[in-house]
């Protein structure tokens, strides 16, 4: 049995679990190819206008799997992965959107993952799903193995291993003597999709900057900061981004937000990040990404931002020297 998993959206968050789960069940996991121009173009052409870029790219990945002859495509309906929180309306509609917009797709496996009340529902959803393919004891084992893989993944992240290294075995050279420390905020599926983000993460690392991201921060610390908001943030990604911004703002030279064109949640959370950083006088750069964003323009803006930060540091050293 060949199960296709699109290499997009929450692949970047939960693929260790998913892959191990399916493999323990005795299925062969087929990942879609890495994002490419043609994958993006396919998605852009087949999605309704105004769909956010990551969902368009997701369509492209599903289509890529269609051409790879899989028996099923795994498109979970991720309503919630955290108590009382949501991910985004589009995740709730994703299986239906995929089913109706990708022609000739094989059957879709779309368990309802709804952890708003408790994690027990999530457990049941995976067990029900697995039961279609294997006996109960095997499914339980698959679930346990999956969790184990996921825990390992999250622990390594917390220890600072970069996500691309963990998922794709890519080498990411972090410099020992970085010239700048930067917080990079955004959905994992933006930051680590080199096609969508045009390799911003890798660019920064290659240019001798230390890049701090939210998935490396302990959940308790994220909550500690997000709970200072006047109102509970009900999007998991929003809570992650705002919490990380609160935690990072005192330890970095500047913050960079990556935002996908058409993203509903980012339009509000990033606006708040921008306002809070302005009030605290922390340099903030907003990079909006769409299918027309040119790499050259993006790099120019990054360079300018880095230059500005370096000048700022120099002048601070200067003025404090004179101040004494």
């Amino acid at each position, binding site marked *: 049995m060949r199960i296709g998993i699109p290499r997009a959206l929450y692949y970047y968050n939960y693929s260790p679990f998913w892959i191990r789960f399916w493999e323990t069940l005795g299925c062969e996991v087929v990942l879609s190819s890495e994002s490419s121009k043609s994958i993006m173009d396919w998605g852009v052409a087949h*999605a*309704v*206008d*105004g*769909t*956010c870029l990551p969902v368009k790219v997701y369509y492209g990945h599903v289509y890529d799997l269609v051409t790879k002859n899989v028996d099923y495509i795994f498109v979970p*309906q991720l309503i919630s992965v955290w108590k*009382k*929180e*949501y*991910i*985004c*309306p*589009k995740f*709730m*509609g994703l*299986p*239906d*959107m995929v089913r*109706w*917009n990708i022609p000739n797709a094989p059957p879709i496996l779309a368990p*309802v993952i709804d952890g708003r009340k408790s994690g027990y529902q999530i457990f049941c959803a995976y067990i029900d799903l697995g039961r279609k393919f294997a006996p109960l004891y095997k499914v339980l084992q698959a679930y346990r193995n999956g969790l184990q893989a996921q825990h390992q993944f999250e622990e390594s992240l917390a220890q600072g291993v970069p996500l691309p290294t963990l998922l794709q075995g890519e080498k990411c050279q972090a410099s020992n003597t970085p010239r700048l420390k930067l917080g990079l905020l955004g959905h994992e599926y933006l930051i680590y999709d080199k096609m969508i983000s045009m390799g911003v993460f890798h660019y920064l690392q290659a240019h001798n900057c230390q890049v701090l991201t939210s998935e490396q921060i302990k959940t308790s610390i994220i909550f500690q900061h997000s709970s200072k*908001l*006047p*109102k*509970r*943030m*009900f*999007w998991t990604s*929003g809570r992650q981004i705002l919490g990380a911004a609160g935690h990072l703002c005192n330890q970095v030279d500047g913050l960079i937000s990556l*935002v996908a*064109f*058409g*993203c*509903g*949640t*980012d*339009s*509000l959370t*990033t*606006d*708040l990040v921008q*306002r809070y950083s*302005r009030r605290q006088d922390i340099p903030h750069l907003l990079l*909006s990404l769409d299918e027309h964003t040119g790499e050259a323009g993006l790099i120019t803006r990054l360079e300018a931002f880095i230059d500005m930060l370096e000048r700022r540091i120099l002048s601070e050293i200067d003025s404090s020297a004179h101040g004494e």
Partner: protein
Amino acid sequence: MKLTVPHMGNSYIALEALLLEMGHEVVVPPASTKKTLNLGTKYSPESACLPLKINIGNFLEAIELGAEGIIMAGGSGPCRFGYYAQVQREILKDLGHEAEVIVLEPPNENFAQLRLQIQRLFALKGMRSFWRGLQLAWEKIQAVEELESVAHYTRPREIVTGNTSHLLANSLAQLRKASSVLDIRRTLQINRDAMLEMAINETKPLRIGIVGEIYTVLEPFVNLDLEERLGHLGVEVNRTVNLVEWIRDHLVLSSLRLYKNDHLRKLAHGYLRGFVGGHGLESVAHTVMLAQQKFDGVIHILPFTCMPEIVAQSVLRHVSADYHIPILSLVVDEHTGETGFQTRLEAFVDLIGQKTEASLNVEAK
């Protein structure tokens, strides 16, 4: 403290009554105009959805008129509305305004806070006036929506184009002034009869249903007077979204945890599995319902990048194909121009007119 509320269709008529009854001074923002939009767009995040921007425009114009407190609703997600007030508060703060944003969160989000806010609101005149206010407001909103739906019926049947709209505007002004339940009911009856009397044109108009994001559907400035335009093109409109239902389902029943969306899920079955925030599920379910009721067409209207409605739009084209019902999706934002809008409406009405004629011919044969 002088209070204000954002515009959403004619809801201000009811909200004003409620607040006045509770002893507050009320500043109703001037009806939304191009100026409101410009103000809102200038100070809101560019990629925010349109309603947030118009709200900001309303608030700024109300503050100019002396408003000191802004009443907004809250929410628990998944769509953006639940966080609107939070962002709006920061926008106003950064602009240096001191107006307080009073957010009424749903009871299951933050019951203690809700109780506190409501207590504050009826501190002036007490509980009794609160109930009386609620009663008045409920009567008014029902009357408003009844008159609006009468207008949907009479517009394509009026002899002199524009009469209905004129009468409707007058009767809404009267309703706004009405100060007792009796008064409201009398106003309703007189005006309803007057409107129906004009509808003597014996035509069989095309019937179009409107579905979509609630604010856009209800706010004529944002939907460029969609209902009126259609009416004047000779179309009888059925607006599937209304406040009376919304208040009943989402404010009352769902606070009591009694609201069930099974009927909607049943209608949308096969297209959408369930709730996707906002009115996404309603849009799909109501389109199916309209198709089953043999409507001639459906207009789906949404603000650019509206999350729940994009999900709906992504499956609606297939509802259209399966049920052979034409659907026009209208996406609005601050750049939507009147001319293009009117042209698209006319083309759509023409198209379904021809289609209906063709099918009538087939039947006749």
